[in-house]
């Protein structure tokens, strides 16, 4: 009953014309920012942050949040159509989204990502509204040892994320981890591989890497390549956007699983939508009866990460609002928008500012509904975007990528970095090396390293701590099991294959 009263209070706040307007403005802007490769939510929110000084805190937060989760809705569009992620969390969507588009199923992929985003978002909101304090409390039990175990699980689970040979995938994971060592060492403070450059002290940026590897890499490799007119206008027609019964049947379970995985990683401070989308994809591929379909346009490979990153977007508000601790740079801005007005997030926020908290939660519902209504008709428009000749489209994207890279820290060196990663991405394409494992190694590597070293400081050098702590131990045991399963199934498949070849010969 209490909850209903809270929902009613929230709805009352969210539905006022002013708040409705800012909600719409936020999600509208977010969708476009998401679609444009290069400009991510952090850049967009940073640019708009100053106006929150002049807004009512609830309206300000509703708008900034709208941009945030709106970006994730739009982020997959460029992944699917152009093989360039509009946001880092949509990088993994390229893997199956782009092949779908190449098969003329772009409309269906976009339709399903919108539905998946809505599902993920909704489940995330349910978690946020029902279990916030509980989840926040649980997240606190995760110390360095637990994070370390979780990240190792992530690395193992995701080592087979692409279909290239395992050695290539593994090599790229390691390369990603190595690139991530550039910067200030997490414990000693020593500058590693910075060569005296101040711009390298913070290391390479995740968005610079994603945009370079995928975006610029794609543009570079398209130079000289003949554009085969795969995109026929019919895929923009409504009839060709409606997923088949088979698509639905394949999608609903991955959507729910993705939402669950996303909700979990979103609520943990320090992880977020990007890790969540990778994990959801890796998980779906792992449990799939037909893993070979992944990477070739499997709808599950689009639905799972897209529901995960949207769920993570919503649950990321849990530590921010209930503990007052932002899990990411974007969340720190949200927190800032509250503190500008003297509101301190924390356990007391929900009881002291009920109209703000519940208003925000209800605005998430409204925003997600608006995004659904906004995005479905736009699909036709986006698909038509592919008809723009590449010699107009690509230079424009190149400009946006450079602006986006610059705007994160206002540092020209970041533009050079994004171009450098572009060249790397191009070379990797030539050598048939997968980019997704590189990105994953880059994201998880620093977490594995720094959390392990923190765990070692706290255990005073006792290695067994990562196994004797209950959560960490369980997760590592799971990891070992997964590793064993992978090896065993590979061996069995190998034996079966040799047997068939032998019997065929005999």
């Amino acid at each position, binding site marked *: 009953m209490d909850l209903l009263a809270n929902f009613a209070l929230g709805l009352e706040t969210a539905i006022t014309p002013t708040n409705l307007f800012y909600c719409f403005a936020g999600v509208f802007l977010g969708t476009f920012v998401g679609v444009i490769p290069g400009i991510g939510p952090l850049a967009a929110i*940073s640019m708009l*942050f*100053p106006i929150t*000084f002049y807004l009512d805190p609830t309206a300000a937060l509703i708008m900034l949040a709208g941009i945030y989760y709106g970006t994730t809705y739009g982020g997959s569009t460029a992944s699917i159509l152009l093989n360039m992620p509009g946001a880092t969390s949509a990088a993994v969507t390229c893997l199956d989204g782009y092949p779908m588009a190449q098969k003329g199923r772009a409309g269906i992929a976009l339709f399903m990502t919108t539905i998946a985003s809505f599902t993920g978002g909704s489940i995330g909101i349910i978690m946020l509204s029902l279990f916030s304090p509980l989840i926040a409390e649980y*997240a*606190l*039990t*995760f*110390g*360095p040892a637990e994070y370390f175990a979780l990240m190792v699980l992530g690395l193992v689970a995701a080592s087979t994320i692409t279909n290239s040979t395992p050695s290539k995938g593994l090599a790229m994971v390691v390369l990603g981890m190595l690139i991530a060592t550039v910067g*200030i*060492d*997490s*414990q*000693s*403070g*020593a500058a590693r591989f910075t060569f*005296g450059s*101040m*711009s390298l*002290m*913070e290391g390479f940026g995740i968005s610079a890497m994603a945009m370079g590897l995928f975006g610029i890499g794609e543009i570079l490799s398209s130079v000289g390549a003949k554009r085969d007119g795969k995109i026929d206008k019919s895929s923009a027609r409504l009839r060709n956007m409606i997923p088949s019964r088979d698509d639905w049947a394949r999608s609903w379970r991955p959507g729910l699983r993705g939402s669950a995985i996303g909700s979990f990683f979103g609520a943990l*401070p*320090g992880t977020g939508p990007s890790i969540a989308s990778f994990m959801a994809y890796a998980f779906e591929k792992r449990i799939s009866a037909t893993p070979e379909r992944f990477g070739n346009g499997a709808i599950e490979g689009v639905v799972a990460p897209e529901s995960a990153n949207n769920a993570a977007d919503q649950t990321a508000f849990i*530590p921010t609002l209930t*503990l*007052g*601790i*932002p*899990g990411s*740079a974007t969340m*720190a*801005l949200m*927190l*800032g*928008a509250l*503190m*500008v007005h*003297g509101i*301190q997030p*924390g*356990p*007391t926020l929900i009881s002291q500012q009920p109209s703000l908290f519940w208003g925000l939660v209800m605005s998430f519902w409204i925003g997600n509904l608006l995004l659904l209504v906004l995005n479905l008709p736009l699909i036709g428009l986006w698909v038509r975007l592919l008809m723009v000749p590449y010699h107009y489209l690509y230079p424009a994207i190149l400009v946006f990528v450079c602006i986006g890279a610059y705007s994160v*820290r*206002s*540092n020209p060196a970041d533009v050079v970095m994004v171009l450098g990663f572009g060249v790397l991405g191009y070379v990797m394409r030539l050598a048939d090396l997968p980019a997704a494992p590189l990105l994953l190694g880059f994201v998880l590597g620093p977490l594995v390293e*720094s959390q392990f070293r*923190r765990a070692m*400081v*706290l255990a*005073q050098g006792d290695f067994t701590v990562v196994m004797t702590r209950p959560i960490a131990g369980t997760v590592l045991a799971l990891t070992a099991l997964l590793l064993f399963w992978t090896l065993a199934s590979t061996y069995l498949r190998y034996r079966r294959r040799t047997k068939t070849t032998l019997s065929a010969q005999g």
Partner: protein
Amino acid sequence: MKALITAAAVAALGAGVAHAQADFPTGPVTLIVPYGTGGSTDMTARPLAIELEEIWGQPVVIQNRPGAGSMIGTTEMTQAAPDGHTLLINTAAITTAPAIQADLQFDPVDDVTPISLLITSPYVLTGGSNVNADDLAGLLEESQERTIFMSTAGPGSSGHFMSELVISASGLNADIVHFGGGGEAYTNMMGGHADTYISTTASVMPYVNDGRIKALAVLAPERFELLPDVPSSGEAGVTGVDIEGWVAVFGPGGMDEELANRINADLAQAMASERMQEQLEQNYAVAGNLTPAEFREIYLRDMQIWQNLADERGIGQ
């Protein structure tokens, strides 16, 4: 050639001294924030800029130049002309960075003009859910039985320096564990994975007020006027840890003294505004009220203290 231009600029400045009062500012003023949008320094800078625009009748443009522990933005400021149209707002990080960054691209003594100490607040030693003690004396006792884990927001952060200072001054049996930012340090303290964290009142008080962490001591000889219930480190018999946290405004090196005084006065006026007073109150902080010359002494003194501590404790080596 460069020297010639500099000489000409200096000459031009010299000629303008007499009119400095009336002539400033002649155009938009850039206030460099060497941290990201929405951070605590940014949140002080933005309302301050609004107040300064009213006083100066010129736009005051905030430029966020984060990176390298505030040194990217600070370096950029030192390269501007010392005509008051490019200013920097920074925390005590500007005094700790020279102690640990060997390759600074400016001289922290000659290339920086300290103008105004805007805000000061004491550092507070806080304890997490795993700490039984309620004050510093208790913590010292607790550390006889087990190693205390002092968390920081990262190596070279002000909390790192303060933790080393506390260890050095009190003989606390402690190991330092660095997290990736204050937020992570707080969650690990709340979860009982790490024990203490040191930061200024503005950062710690919200969590203390929530009851999630406890304030063990204000690092000062006496109790802090705005937190009468929190014991001081002096009460625990620990001395030599009474450095204050602050936010201050700087100009490029070699700024004309009169101009610095003028900007100092304008900043004081801005700080007296209702908007800024409200912010001070929220942050449990007080306004600085020092002349540029007085502030310069604190700036140089703090830098020396951190340098000595870095040498003694082997920070950044």
